[in-house]
């Protein structure tokens, strides 16, 4: 049905509301069966570092490719830098580093960056100046004149990052930018991303490394099987899961069950009481009562859900089943069983 529609009619621009990326109802099915995206809604604000998380095959790269006009969506509405998604116009102000980039080995690092600049319609002078500056910024000045086929993966990643920044983009989309980079390099890239944000660039980050995203991202979205399962700041997403834990010697007090949502668990000679609140004042009456009962309190601490817990919460459905990796596959007509 969608194939009958013209390409232009698939896009309907919407107001940006200050978001550089504001897309709704993104659908994409490959080969009529593989449902890569099933109605994605996503907003990325100007000047933030936005992280997109999700298991393999969740549709993260497809979404980025749709924004970069590499993949054509079946349906989409919204805007990218104020233009319809699919339009080439905003791409002059966008930098992109794909996950498995493949730069020609016969080019030098400097040539790759300059070529990228030329494709973004920069003047020769701008290309040259920016290329040298960026090589320095990613710590590759010494290797700028060497051919890429002599580079390590980490070096390729740095040059890839530099070529994505050559046009001084408003938005930079990076797909696994630290893939293959050593810990020192990762830290440098993280610092660079933070610097870029401080300079006013918007960073859209696709990564599997949860801890890394936690360190740099202002907001994240978690995608599962072609849908955005959660979206917000890490603070917002973990707010409901915040609690305080109090540990004391002795058996669990029976009055704890009378407290709303509080739970107690016996651990050998200790009792662990969990109170679902991040308000430290709210747990004081419980501590007072435990002391009154003459119990020794061994530990009081605030517990926040780790990014990994958050991720797992997103990929596990209500029945407790972990979503299978990959996109949803529509069974073949008449096959009845699961698609391969």
């Amino acid at each position: 049905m969608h194939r009958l529609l013209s390409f232009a009619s698939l896009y309907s621009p919407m107001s940006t509301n200050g978001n550089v990326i504001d897309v709704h109802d993104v659908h994409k099915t490959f080969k009529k069966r593989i449902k890569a995206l099933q109605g994605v809604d996503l907003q990325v604000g100007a000047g933030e570092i936005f992280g997109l998380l999700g298991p393999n095959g969740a549709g993260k790269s497809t979404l980025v490719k749709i924004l970069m006009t590499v993949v054509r969506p079946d349906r989409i509405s919204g805007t990218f830098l104020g233009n319809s998604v699919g339009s080439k116009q905003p791409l002059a102000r966008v930098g992109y580093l794909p996950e498995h980039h493949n730069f020609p080995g016969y080019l030098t690092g400097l040539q790759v960056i300059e070529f990228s600049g030329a494709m973004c319609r920069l003047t020769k002078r701008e290309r040259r100046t920016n290329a040298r500056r960026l090589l320095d910024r990613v710590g590759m000045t010494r290797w700028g004149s060497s051919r890429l086929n002599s580079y390590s993966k980490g070096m390729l990643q740095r040059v890839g990052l530099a070529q994505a920044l050559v046009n001084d983009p408003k938005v930079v989309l990076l797909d696994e930018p630290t893939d293959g980079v050593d810990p020192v390099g990762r830290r440098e890239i993280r610092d660079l991303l933070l610097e870029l944000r401080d300079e006013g660039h918007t960073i859209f980050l696709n990564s599997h490394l949860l801890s890394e995203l936690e360190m740099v991202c202002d907001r994240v979205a978690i995608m599962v099987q072609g849908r955005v399962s959660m979206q917000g700041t890490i603070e917002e997403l973990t707010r409901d899961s915040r609690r305080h834990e109090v540990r004391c010697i002795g058996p669990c007090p029976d009055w704890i069950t009378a407290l709303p949502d509080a739970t107690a668990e016996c651990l050998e000679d200790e009792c662990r009481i969990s109170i679902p609140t991040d308000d430290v004042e709210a747990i004081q009456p419980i501590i007072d009562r435990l002391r009154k009962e003459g119990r020794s309190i061994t530990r009081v601490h605030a517990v926040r859900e780790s990014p990994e817990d958050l991720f797992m919460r997103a990929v596990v459905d209500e029945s407790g089943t972990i979503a299978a990796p990959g996109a949803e596959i529509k069974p073949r007509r008449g096959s009845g069983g699961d698609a391969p």
Partner: protein
Amino acid sequence: MSQTIALLIDAYRLLNARKIFWITLVLSLLVVSSFALVGIHDHGISIAWWDLEIPELNTGSGGWSKELFYKIMFTELGIKIWLAWVATILGLITTASIFPEFVTAGSIDIILSKPIGRFRLFFTKYLTGLLFVILQVSVFTGASFIVIGIRGGVWEPGIFIAIPLVVLFFSYLFSVCAVLGVITRSTIASLLLTILFWFIIFIVQSAERSLLFFEMMNEQRVMAYEDAVDRTRQRLDKVEDPDDMERWGFLHETLDKRKAILEESESTAGNLDTWHDGLMFVMTVLPKTGETIELLQRWTIDLAELPGSTDEPSRPIIDDDDHFRLDEDRLGQDMQTALRNRSPWWILGTSFIFELVVLCFGAWRFNRRDF
């Protein structure tokens, strides 16, 4: 414009990085150098410091001019053999990977994420692929121009027409190769299928030439038997009492036999004509690789310049033993004339339309495809 220039420079860098490009260029220069080593004189030809006496090939009276000798060598060996076969195969090997590598995941993502339309990208990339043959044929023709000038004593700028003709010829094949590259994403598959396509074109063209040859041979046969029938009739008209079968029965017999052969030849002509028309239709649809290259000879060498050519061809005859004697010289000339009479607009125009259709399909496919 900066984008187009960047793509062209990138294409040059790609060629520069490929050894086969430089190997082909060096081989091209060796071929031209070998032309320079060959000379023609009153008694034959010389190769470096060896003289070979060849009665058919000399600059003596009624023989070859130096200019014609070098022009023939340039068109027959340099263009038809070297550029149109060997260098083209090397060119296809070099350029077949351009589109498959271009659409490789990780490579195409970066280029498509730039503010450049897919149609423009496809056609610019296609044109950059022709850079290989443009550089090769330009160097080869330039060097040949110098060799013909120094050794042949004539500075013939007309041979530079070889550059657009060879580029056009290569572009027919490269268009197919480019589209196959976009569809299959495989260098080997696109190269082999392009060579297969080229082979099919070659077979169709060879079949058409063969049919044309048989058609013309049959025409001579018809002509000869028409003459023979006329001659026999005239002979019968001249004799007294031609109905006297005892005396002139053999003449009647000969007449009937010749008439039967003439009818059979005319019927064969009809059949050949039908088949030839069918093949010409197929030829019209396909690119005309051979004929495009032959335009160079047509435009640089006049038939009248060739030794042995005559404006008054003889007529084929049926000899006294009633055998048909083919006039090979006339057949050769008729073939040349028939081929030269084919309109360049038909040759180039229909081939170009084919190329355009293939490229538009490729561009449409490239534009629609997800990467």
